[in-house]
């Protein structure tokens, strides 16, 4: 520990796709300010929704968020926050969260899902908006026509192979693993609903940002440079991610930062129009009232910052 009084940001994080933060956690020496002019108290969470609650309760200053959880916090929890950076999104041609069925399944189209049991990683989570929209477009009422069960990504492949669900959604690295094993096929992916979906981003409480602009600036600067390092040095990134996820490098190597991975903005810059589009979908599917993304924009503090 340093004897100098340092300012501390309490940051929430989760796994598996926040490479710039993982760099900051595991390679702090690479960041000139981190641990010197300011400190981070890292807390890991199970999913983004609890982090929204933690932000609303004032127990965190910044945290990983999904557009939906953040909006829920705003609508239901009186949360005021700025989106300061973005972690991953769906790039055209890259990985898109998809629903898989078994090869020999009679389900060939989305319309065939009627009356089936369908797994989803988180009910009411970020993927459900586009998912609902696709169902509706194919004449299925998401509330009545299918039986939706929560199946975490980790067990989704097993649940499908065991026949516990007829279709289930897949994410990396589990999708890569399932594909390598074979026997499953992609039914549809979220990119069919909209391109460049933003999966996770970085948000900070507005009151905290307003009170400590320099501090947050330093943090966002480091996220920006972390993203740069992550993209520039894949070999090291594999190591870093492996340390955090405790996943073996060969598994990560099958997808991480490859074409079959999510997209990452080189400057970790939030794609506000895409986020707005998602908010619109949520409003359309009745999950949320209409929201304007502008409220999440800070005039100066937003990645990329040098």
């Amino acid at each position: 520990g340093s004897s100098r009084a340092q300012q501390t940001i309490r940051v929430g994080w989760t796994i598996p796709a926040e490479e710039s933060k993982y760099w900051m956690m595991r390679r702090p020496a690479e960041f000139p300010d981190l641990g010197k002019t300011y400190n981070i108290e890292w807390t890991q969470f199970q999913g983004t929704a609890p982090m929204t609650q933690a932000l609303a309760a004032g127990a965190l200053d910044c945290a990983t968020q999904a557009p939906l959880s953040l909006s829920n916090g705003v609508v239901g929890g009186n949360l005021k926050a700025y989106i300061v950076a973005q972690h991953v999104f769906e790039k055209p041609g890259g990985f898109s969260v998809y629903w898989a069925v078994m090869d020999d399944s009679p389900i060939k189209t989305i319309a065939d899902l009627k009356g089936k049991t369908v797994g989803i990683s988180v009910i009411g989570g970020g993927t459900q908006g586009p998912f609902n929209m696709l169902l509706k477009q194919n004449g299925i009422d998401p509330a009545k026509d299918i039986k939706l069960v929560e199946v975490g990504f980790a067990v989704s492949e097993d649940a499908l192979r065991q026949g516990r669900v007829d279709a289930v959604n897949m994410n990396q690295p589990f999708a890569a693993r399932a594909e390598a094993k074979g026997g499953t096929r992609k039914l549809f992916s979220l990119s069919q609903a909209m391109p460049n979906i933003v999966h996770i981003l970085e948000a900070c409480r507005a009151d905290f940002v307003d009170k400590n602009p320099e501090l947050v600036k330093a943090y966002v600067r480091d996220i920006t440079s972390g993203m740069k390092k992550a993209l520039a040095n894949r070999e090291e990134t594999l190591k870093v991610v492996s340390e955090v996820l405790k996943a073996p490098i060969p598994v990560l190597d099958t997808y991480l930062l490859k074409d079959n991975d999510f997209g990452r903005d080189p400057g970790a810059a939030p794609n506000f129009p895409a986020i707005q589009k998602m908010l619109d979908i949520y409003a359309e599917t009745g999950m949320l009232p209409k929201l304007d993304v502008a409220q999440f924009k800070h005039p100066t503090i937003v990645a990329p910052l040098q």
Partner: protein
Amino acid sequence: MTSRALSTDVLLGLLPIALLIALWQGLVSFELAPVALLPPPGLVFSRLLQQLVTFSFQQEIIATLFRLFTGFLIAVALGVGVGMVAAASPAINATVRPLVRVLAPLPKVALYPALLLLLGFGHESKIALVAADALFPILLSTYYGASTVEQKLIWSAMAAGTPRREILLKVVLPAAMPSILTGCRIGLVISCIVVFLAEMITSTDGLGHVLITAARTFQAVDMFVPLITISLLGLILNALLQAARSYLLRGFPEA
């Protein structure tokens, strides 16, 4: 116990609960907690009353209760059975004791994903989790109670011609009853917690699921309704257990 004493007891018991609700109201009134996280009690209770009469909410309660009871009863049957046999037979004791030592401290929630895959997303996986968690407190209390039964009670029964295999049922079980019921009480509360937790983790219905759906969308009032419901259920179930206890133990000095 006279009925006057009984009603004083009830009043005394209501007092701290009233204080708790007052404290809750105070926290909200003095803005020590944001309404978004802690809605005022009046709102929660009036929503609860509204919900209680709706068919769909009743269905959720029934689903939760069904899992809770089935799991708890399995735990009681297994815990009491194994606990007694382990106290009676050195051979079984030698096997059960180490097994219990290994299995008891395992975090059963971590096995829940495996249970889901083996037993599906419906009742079975939750019942299994409830049973697994409630089992050990009941088993340990039964074992303790059974192994400290006054020797001379057993001797008296054996001398009266009770066959060995019946001693367990006729002497050890009733003599260990105070301890067994203590274990059951703890097991019951754990069952309440676990069934709720399991429904929060993965479910399509039940009170825990109601809470999670509300929590995801920051519906604070709807979050608290299932919480209050489970808490009331706990209170009612415990009162029932208490009544059973004072009947079953009416011959014991402490009853």
